[in-house]
C-alpha cells in the first residue's frame, strides 16, 4: 500500500509517495488546475502511476482556503453579534499598518456591514445573563438572512466563552429559518476571551465552510470514482493532519496547510539526522518563509494575522514571510539607496533573462551574471545573459557601482532581508541562531542558504534530498494532530486543582472525539497538556507544558518554575516578584501514523565527479567545482567554491564552506566560522 503526499502550489501540483513495505518511492509534478484544483490532485496520482486502490493514506496540503479568503472569493456570509459590537470585525483594534502613510486603507471586512446584525442580549464576564436574548429581534434577523439567500452564518456574542447559552439559542433560531445553512458559533470555534480574535476566526470559519466543503466533496467524489478507498487526510496549520470531515468543519485550521508540509519535512530531518534544532526556510519566486523546528516539532503561535488586524486565533506554525525570492526586483529608492524587493517579477513576466517581457533586474538575473546559475539550466529554454547584464547595468549606473558589484550587492541585500525573517522567528522568540542548522527548501533556496547562514552565524546548512517536492514529501511524514483549548482564568496562588483536573479530562475527551471523527480507527495516541499562563497583570500569555495525570497541589510550584522558564525562553526575562495566573488550558492529541522509512535519496553508484566554471564571489571570479546533484553519493565531500545542480534547484557553496552528503542523500554544508 502507498502513502501519498500531495501539495497543490500556485503553479505545480507535487506528489511524493512511498510504498509502506518495500521502501520504494515515486514523485510526480503536474500543472495545478486552477479552475478546480481537485483535478490536478487526481492527475498527479495518475502521473505517478499509483493505483488508486493501493493508497492507504492520501495526505493533502491545500492553499484553496487561504487564496479564497485573501481574494474575498466566497459566497456572502452573515454575522450575528451582541448589540454594540456589530463592527468589531471591521474596526479591529483601531491601529494602522503604516505609521505615516496618509492614504492607507484597512482590509475589506470579511463580511459586509449590511450582513452583520446586532441582537439585544448580554452575558456577564462570570457567565450570568445580564440581559436575555431578545428572541423577537433574533427571529427577524434570522428571517432577513434567510430571505437574502445567505447560506453561512457566524454567531459571536460577548463573553460567550464563559457561557455559550445565547449563542446556542441563536443558532437554533437561525436554523429554524434557514435549515440548510452552515451555522457556526464562536464558543465552539474558539472558546477563549478577546472578542476580536474570536469573532474574526468565527467569521473566517463561516466564510470558508461552503468553499471547503464543496472542494473536499468534489475531491472525495473524484477519488472514489477512481477506486480510492484509503483515508484522505488534510494538512492543517498546526503542523498535523486531520480527516476530511474535520477539515470541512474547521476550515480556519487550513490557513497554513500549504507551507505546513515543508515544515514537516524539516521536522523529519530533525528526527533522522544529527540535528535536533532546525530553521526551516523556503524561497520561491516572490517570498521567503522561515520557521523553527525544535526536537522534531514546529514552533506554534496564536498571534497570526492573515492580513492587517485579521487575526486567525488558532494554534498555527509560526511561519514568517518576507518579500524576497528569485523574482525580487532591484531598485534605487528616493534616498539613493539600493533596495531589493518586496516587489517581484514573479513568473509573469519573470526575470529579464527569461525573455518573457521582464525589464527590471531581479535576483535571478543577478545570480545568472555572477555565474551561479547555468544559462542552459533548464532544458526548456536558454537564459539570456546579455539582457540580464543590460538590466543590471541600468541599476549600477544609478548607484555608482560596477555591474558585478551591483549584482553581488543585490544578492547580499536580499539575503539580509531573508536573515531578518529568520531573526523574526529565531531571535524574536529568544533563541540563539548558533544552536540551529538552516534547512533550505524551494527552487531559489539553496542558492542563497549559505549567505543567509553566514549573516546569522548559523554554523550549518542542510540541503535535503527531496527539495524539489519538499512539501509533498513532508506531508507523508505527518501525524494526526488536534489542539483543543478552554479558557480558565485562575491565579496560581489559589487555583483549585480539582478544576484543572476536571477541565483537562474534558479536553482530553474532546480531543479523542475529534481523533475519532478522522475515521482512521484507533491510532496510537499521545496526549500532551499545556497551559497559557502569564504574570498577573500582563496581557499576553506564554505556553507552558503541564504534566499528565492527576495534578496535585504540590505540583503547582513546579508548574510555576516551568512557566518562569518558558517566559525566559520567549522574552529573555522572568521574575519571582509577580504572581502567576492560568489563562487557558490546552490538550494536544497526536494520532501517530507510521513514520516514513529511512530513505537514501542520494546516487546509487556514480561518483562525485566535477567539472568547473568561473563564479563571482566577494569581488572576484573564482574557479568553482561543478556537480550534478544526481551524481552525489553518500559520503561524497566537496569544498566551496562549488555549484551543485539539482533537477529543480541549484546549491551555491561559497569559498570557505565545505559539504558532505549524508546517508540519506542530504547535502550538509559547514559554514566557516
Amino acid at each position, binding site marked *: 500500500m502507498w502513502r501519498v503526499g500531495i501539495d497543490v502550489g500556485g503553479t505545480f501540483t507535487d506528489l511524493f509517495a512511498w510504498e509502506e513495505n518495500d521502501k520504494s518511492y515515486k514523485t510526480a509534478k503536474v500543472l495545478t488546475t486552477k479552475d478546480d484544483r481537485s483535478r490536478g490532485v487526481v492527475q498527479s496520482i495518475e502521473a505517478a502511476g499509483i493505483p488508486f486502490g493501493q493508497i492507504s493514506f492520501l495526505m493533502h496540503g491545500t492553499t484553496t482556503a487561504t487564496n479564497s479568503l485573501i481574494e474575498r472569493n466566497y459566497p456572502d456570509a452573515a454575522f450575528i453579534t451582541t*448589540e*454594540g*459590537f*456589530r*463592527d*468589531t470585525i*471591521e*474596526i479591529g*483594534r*483601531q*491601529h*494602522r499598518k*503604516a*505609521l*505615516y*502613510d*496618509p*492614504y492607507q*486603507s*484597512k482590509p475589506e471586512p470579511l463580511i*459586509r*456591514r*449590511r450582513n452583520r446584525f*446586532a441582537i439585544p442580549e448580554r452575558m456577564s*464576564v462570570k457567565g450570568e445573563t*445580564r440581559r436575555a436574548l431578545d428572541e423577537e429581534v433574533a427571529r427577524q434577523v434570522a428571517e432577513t438572512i434567510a430571505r437574502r439567500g445567505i447560506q453561512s452564518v457566524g454567531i459571536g456574542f*460577548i*463573553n460567550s*466563552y464563559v457561557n455559550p447559552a445565547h449563542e446556542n439559542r441563536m443558532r437554533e433560531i437561525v436554523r429554524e429559518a434557514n435549515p440548510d445553512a452552515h451555522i457556526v458559533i464562536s464558543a465552539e470555534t474558539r472558546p477563549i*476571551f*478577546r*472578542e476580536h480574535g474570536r469573532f474574526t476566526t468565527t467569521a473566517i470559519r463561516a466564510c470558508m465552510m461552503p468553499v471547503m466543503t464543496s472542494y473536499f466533496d468534489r475531491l472525495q467524489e473524484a477519488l472514489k470514482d477512481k477506486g480510492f478507498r484509503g483515508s484522505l487526510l488534510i494538512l492543517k496549520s498546526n503542523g498535523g493532519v486531520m480527516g476530511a470531515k474535520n477539515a470541512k468543519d474547521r476550515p480556519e485550521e487550513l490557513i497554513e496547510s500549504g507551507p505546513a508540509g515543508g515544515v514537516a519535512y524539516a521536522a523529519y530531518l530533525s528526527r533522522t539526522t544529527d540535528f535536533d534544532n532546525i530553521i526551516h526556510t523556503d524561497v520561491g519566486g516572490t517570498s521567503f518563509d522561515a520557521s523553527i523546528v525544535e526536537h522534531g516539532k514546529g514552533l506554534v503561535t496564536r498571534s497570526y494575522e492573515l492580513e492587517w488586524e485579521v487575526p486567525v486565533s488558532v494554534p498555527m506554525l509560526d511561519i514568517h514571510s518576507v518579500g524576497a525570492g528569485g523574482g525580487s526586483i532591484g531598485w534605487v*529608492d*528616493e*534616498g*539613493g*539607496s*539600493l*533596495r531589493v524587493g518586496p516587489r517581484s517579477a514573479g513568473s509573469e513576466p519573470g526575470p529579464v533573462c527569461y525573455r518573457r517581457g521582464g525589464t527590471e533586474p531581479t535576483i535571478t538575473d543577478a545570480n545568472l551574471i555572477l555565474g551561479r546559475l547555468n544559462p542552459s539550466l533548464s532544458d526548456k529554454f536558454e537564459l539570456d545573459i546579455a539582457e540580464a547584464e543590460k538590466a543590471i547595468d541600468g541599476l549600477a549606473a544609478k*548607484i555608482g557601482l560596477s555591474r558585478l558589484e551591483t549584482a*553581488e*550587492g543585490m544578492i*547580499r*541585500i536580499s539575503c*539580509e*532581508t531573508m536573515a531578518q525573517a529568520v531573526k523574526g522567528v529565531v*531571535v*524574536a522568540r529568544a533563541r540563539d541562531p548558533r544552536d540551529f542548522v538552516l534547512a533550505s527548501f524551494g527552487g531559489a533556496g539553496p542558492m542563497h542558504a549559505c549567505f543567509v547562514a553566514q*549573516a546569522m552565524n548559523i554554523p550549518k546548512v542542510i540541503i535535503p534530498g527531496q527539495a524539489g517536492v519538499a512539501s509533498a514529501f513532508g506531508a507523508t511524514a505527518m501525524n494526526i494532530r488536534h489542539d483543543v483549548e478552554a479558557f480558565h482564568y485562575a491565579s496560581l496562588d489559589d487555583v483549585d486543582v480539582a478544576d484543572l483536573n476536571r477541565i483537562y479530562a474534558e479536553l482530553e475527551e474532546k480531543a479523542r472525539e475529534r481523533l475519532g471523527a478522522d475515521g482512521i480507527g484507533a491510532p496510537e495516541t499521545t496526549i500532551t497538556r499545556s497551559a497559557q499562563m502569564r*504574570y498577573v*497583570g*500582563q*496581557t*499576553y500569555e506564554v505556553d507552558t507544558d503541564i504534566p499528565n495525570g492527576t495534578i496535585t497541589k504540590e505540583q503547582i510550584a513546579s508548574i510555576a518554575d516551568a512557566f518562569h522558564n518558558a517566559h525566559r525562553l*520567549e*522574552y*529573555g*526575562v522572568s*521574575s519571582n516578584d*509577580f504572581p502567576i495566573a492560568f489563562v487557558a488550558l490546552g490538550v494536544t492529541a497526536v494520532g501517530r501514523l507510521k513514520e516514513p522509512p529511512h530513505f537514501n535519496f542520494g546516487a546509487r553508484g556514480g561518483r562525485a565527479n566535477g567539472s568547473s566554471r568561473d563564479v563571482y564571489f566577494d569581488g572576484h571570479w573564482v574557479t568553482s567545482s561543478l556537480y550534478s546533484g544526481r551524481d552525489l553519493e553518500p559520503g561524497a565531500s566537496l569544498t566551496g567554491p562549488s555549484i551543485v545542480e539539482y533537477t529543480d534547484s541549484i546549491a551555491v557553496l561559497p569559498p570557505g564552506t565545505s559539504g558532505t552528503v549524508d546517508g540519506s542523500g542530504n547535502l550538509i554544508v559547514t559554514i566557516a566560522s
Partner: protein
Amino acid sequence: MDSSSATAQKIDISDRMDPVTFEVLRNSFEYACTRMTTIMQRTSFSPILADILDFSNAIYDAKVRLLAQAANCPVHLAAMQYSADAAISRFPVETLKPGDVIALNDPYQGGTHINDITFTMPIFYEGELLGFAVSRGHWMDLGGGAAGGMSFSTHIAAEGLRLPPIKLYENYEINRDYLAIIMNNTRTPHYIRGDLQAHLGALKSAESELQRAAARYGVETVKAAMNELIGYTERIVRKSIEAIPDGVYSAEDFADTDGFSPDPIKVKVTLTIAGSDITVDFSGSDPICKGSINSPFANTASAAYYSLQFFLAPHAPSNAGMFAPIKIVLPDNCWLNAKWPAPTIGCTTLTSSKITSAIWQALAKAIPERVTGSTCSECNWFVSTAVDEETRRADVFSDLPAGGWGGTPFNDGMSVTMDPLGNCMNMAAETAELFFPIEYEAFELRQDSAGAGKFRGGLGAVFKVRYLCDGELNMETSRTREGSPGVNGGGRSAVQRSSHLYPDGKELVIGGLSPNGAWTSPLLSGHQFSYDEVFKFESTGGGGWGNPKDRSEDKVLSDVLDDYISLAAAKEKYRVVIDPKTMTVDKAATARLRGA
C-alpha cells in the same frame, strides 16, 4: 523668540559608504527598534502599555542623534530626542557606564506631559560608546490631583510626580530609593516593577543587537552607517520639500477650551517653503493658557515634525535627518511653548492633534492634490477609577476610543483608527471586563459622523462603558464645537460629545453640545459615576476630500446599504435620492438634484 531645530549639527552626506553594507546595517538598526517594541508589548504589565501600546522605542548614535525608531506614537518622535539630550546634559557621556539607565519625565527638561517617562541607556562595545537605546512609555498614573494626572487644574504640581533626569539603574541594578519614591507617588504601584522590567528588557535587546552589528562589521563601519543613515533621510526629506511650490502658507485650528476659557484657543501656523527648507512658525497662536493643554517646546516641535512627515517622507526611516531641513519658530508667551508652572497634561493628545490639523490645512494650500482631509484630530483619552465594592480599593482603567481619518485623493479615510499622533490599540471589551468591574456596551461605527466628499472621511465611533461600581472619570477631548475640516470642497465631520446615561433612561450631555444648544467643556475631571450608570462617548469621523456631488451614485448607495450614511445624508449631502422601498437609486430625482 526661541528659534531652533532639533539638531544643530551639520550632517555630512558627502562621504557615502558602500551602499550594500549600508543597506544591511540600516536593516539591523530598524530591527533593533522593532525587537524593543515586541518586548515592551509582550512583557509590560499596565494595560496602557501592553494592550494599548502607548510607548515608543528608538536608538541614537554616540552624538545623541536619533537614528531609528519604532514609534507607536509619532508624538514621541522628536520629543524623545529632547529627552535624550536632557539626560545626557545632566549625566555627561564620559561618565556613563554599561548598565546605566537615566529616567526623566520633566515637561520642561525634555519631557512632554508627566505620564510619558523616558529611559535612556548607553550602549558600549569593547569599551567604546556605540550609541543609546531609548524607551518611552506612557505610565498609567504618576500621582497628581486626579487619576492619570488629569486634574485639569492650573499648576503642573497637580499633574503628578515630576522627575528630573535621575540615574535609575546602575550596572543594570535599580536604585531602590528612587523606586520607592515612584511607588509612593502613584495610584497603580502594582504595575511599576513589571513595566520597569519591560523597559529594561527592551533597552537590553537593543544593546545586544547593536553589539552584534559591531562584532560583525566593526565599530567604525557601524558608526559610518549611522552617519550615512541620517544623511539618507535628510536627502529624501529635502527632495520632497523641493517638490512643494515655494511660498508662505498659513492656517488655523482650535482647541475647544482649556477647561476655563469660554472661547476656543487658537493654533496658528505659517509654513514658509524655500527650496529644500521649511520654517514652521507658530506666531499668532494664543498666549500661555490657564488650563492643562499647554505644550512644551519638545511636544510642539515633535507635533510639527510628525505632521510634516506624513507628506514629506512617510516611508523613510525616522531619524535626525528629518529634523535638519525643518526649522521651528515659537513666540515666547505662547501656549505652544509652555514654561514652568504651566500645566501640560493634554499636550500630547489634544494639542498635538490640533497642530497636525493646522499644518495639514496649510499644506493643502500648497499641494491640494496630495493632502487629505483632517482626521478626527483627537485622542479622546480617558482615565477612570473603578472602586471595588468590597475592598473599596480604587483601580484605574483607561481607553482612547478613536475617530476617523480624512478622505484622501485616492480613497475614503479609515474609520475608527487612532489619530496620527499615536498608533495605540483600544481595550478589548472582554479584557476590560475580566479585570475591572465594568461592562463595555458598545464600540461601533457612528452613522453620518464623517465629512462628506468625493472621498468621504472614515467614520467615528459610539463608545459606551457601564460602571458596575463607583468610579471617577477624567477625560480630555475636543472637537465638540465643530467637527474636523475637509479639503478641496469636502465637508466637515460631526461634533464629538460625552454623555452620562442613568438607569432610568435619562441622558445628560457632560461634554459638548446638548440638544438645547448649550455647550459644556469636554475636559472632565473627577466626574462621578455610580453603579449601573453609563459613560457614552461619540467620536467624530474625518473630513471629506473633494465635492460630495462627485461621489458615484453606486458608492453612495452602497454606503446607505451598509448604514455608513443615512438616507437623509445621501440626499442632503451627496444629492443622491434612494427609494427606501426598493433601496435603489432614483436616477431621475438624483439627476435633478445633482444638476441643480
